[in-house]
């Protein structure tokens, strides 16, 4: 199994979720993150003090899927999350050795 870790624009979360569930994948874990990359941040001024904020808000979506659907998932996410502007984000694919469903103790793909 693979962990498909997608870092996308926050306002794209719903679209990505829709695209992934459309593939009959009904599980993902999301967290709020801050990204640093090509996309430029902005300047903030508080009374005298000026700060440049290089970190921009992103959401990280972790989806663990069976090897055979990785490709489809990636394509679906790319399609849903793309706006064409710098900052659209990245997808990282890593290997997952095992998955356990806590409720049942099932493991492997059965646990997904």
């Amino acid at each position, binding site marked *: 199994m693979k962990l498909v870790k997608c870092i996308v624009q926050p*306002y794209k979360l*719903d679209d990505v979720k829709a695209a992934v569930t459309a593939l009959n994948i009904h599980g993902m874990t999301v967290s709020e993150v*801050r990204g640093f990359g090509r996309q430029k941040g*902005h*300047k*903030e*001024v*508080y009374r005298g003090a000026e700060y440049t*904020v290089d970190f921009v808000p992103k959401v990280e979506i972790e989806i663990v899927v069976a090897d055979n659907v990785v490709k489809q998932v990636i394509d679906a996410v790319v399609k849903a999350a793309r706006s064409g502007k710098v900052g659209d984000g990245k997808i990282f694919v890593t290997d997952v050795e095992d998955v356990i469903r806590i409720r049942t103790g099932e493991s492997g793909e059965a646990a997904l």
Partner: protein
Amino acid sequence: MKRAFGMTSALFVFLISAAGAASAQDVAPAARIDTGDTAWILVSAALVMLMTPGLALFYGGMVRRKNVLGTIMHSFIAIALVSVQWILIGYSLAFGPDIKGIIGSLDWAGLSGVALTPNADYAPTVPHLAFMIYQAMFAVITPALISGAFAERMKFSAYLLFTLLWTTIVYDPVAHWVWGNGGWLKQLGVLDFAGGIVVHATSGFSALAAALFIGKRKGFLHEPMPPHDLPMTVLGAGLLWFGWFGFNAGSALSSGQLATMAFVTTHTAAVSATLTWIFVEWLHRGKPTMFGAATGSIAGLATITPAAGFVGPLPALVIGIAAGLLCYTALNAKTRFGYDDSLDAFGVHGVGGTLGTVMAGVFASIAINSSGANGLVFGNPKQLAIQAGSVLLAASYSFVASLVLFKIIDSIVGLRIDGEQETEGLDISQHGESGYTI
């Protein structure tokens, strides 16, 4: 900086004359000033001033995090901008010597001649300046109410321009018509105790114009846009409610029986509207919400405003129930019409203000306020007609004038921020700051 310094010097010319005026004031006898009445008006002015920061929080909690400061700023800066306009020209336009019942003259510009002695036409037992500053707080909050309609998407420069022009060509004249000495609606005998027409109908219908003209927020009905901090909204509602006692009971312009009746009817309508709202919501949606209770209380307060000093407690209870039912329906119907009155400035203030003005025509009784009139239930259908006609007219004027203003401002500075700024939020795009740190 130049500009600011320019203003400074420009103002120096006023100074001596101003002081002159002041001295003129001092000579006049202060005999007629009542300390209790004055204390009540000053307290009421402070209470009404607090309503605008209250509104800032009420609205601020409803928007998304990225827009919290921009939303709060709409109310906060209105205090500053409108107060300055009020002192320089607004008060004179609204309450100054009448010109054909349409507008006040500029004789009182810069408060010249607005003395510490009472003005018998407006408030015979308190300093004229106390009446002026009390009224200033009403002028301040009215345009701020509108900002709920175009929340999360208006350019700050456009907002400033709109507020300044709107208060001058909509608020000041309408205030003169209804409250100004010689104002033509006043002559007509319209009843508007604390601003159902002047404050709520004008702002509410201008809000409708705004929502229609500026268009929907990006992602409206597609992305979820839940309030980011409802406790902030509840706090705002609490401060508004608290301040509303000054708004309505203070409009008696004296401390005593009339202030007491207005105080009681205000609270009564607020509570019956709140209860009505949550029960209707419970039946309709399956659950009563805190947000609904807060909204209902404000609907009740807005609705009783024009009637507060003309009706008794039980009519007020009924008016509150009507407010809950009608405003709830308006808010829920909204989505069907599909315009984006983001924070329901029209649904609450436009609908509530109009309903209340009409209700005053139904339940008003000279037994409650001898300087008022009898309404429908006391055998005077004519009053109902006057009320309905007046509010309709003021509402239409506000709606049209606002549309015109938006058109003009849009062509000058542009009304709306661009898509990327909207995604980024008002706080960063318009003000270069963030409401919170993680």
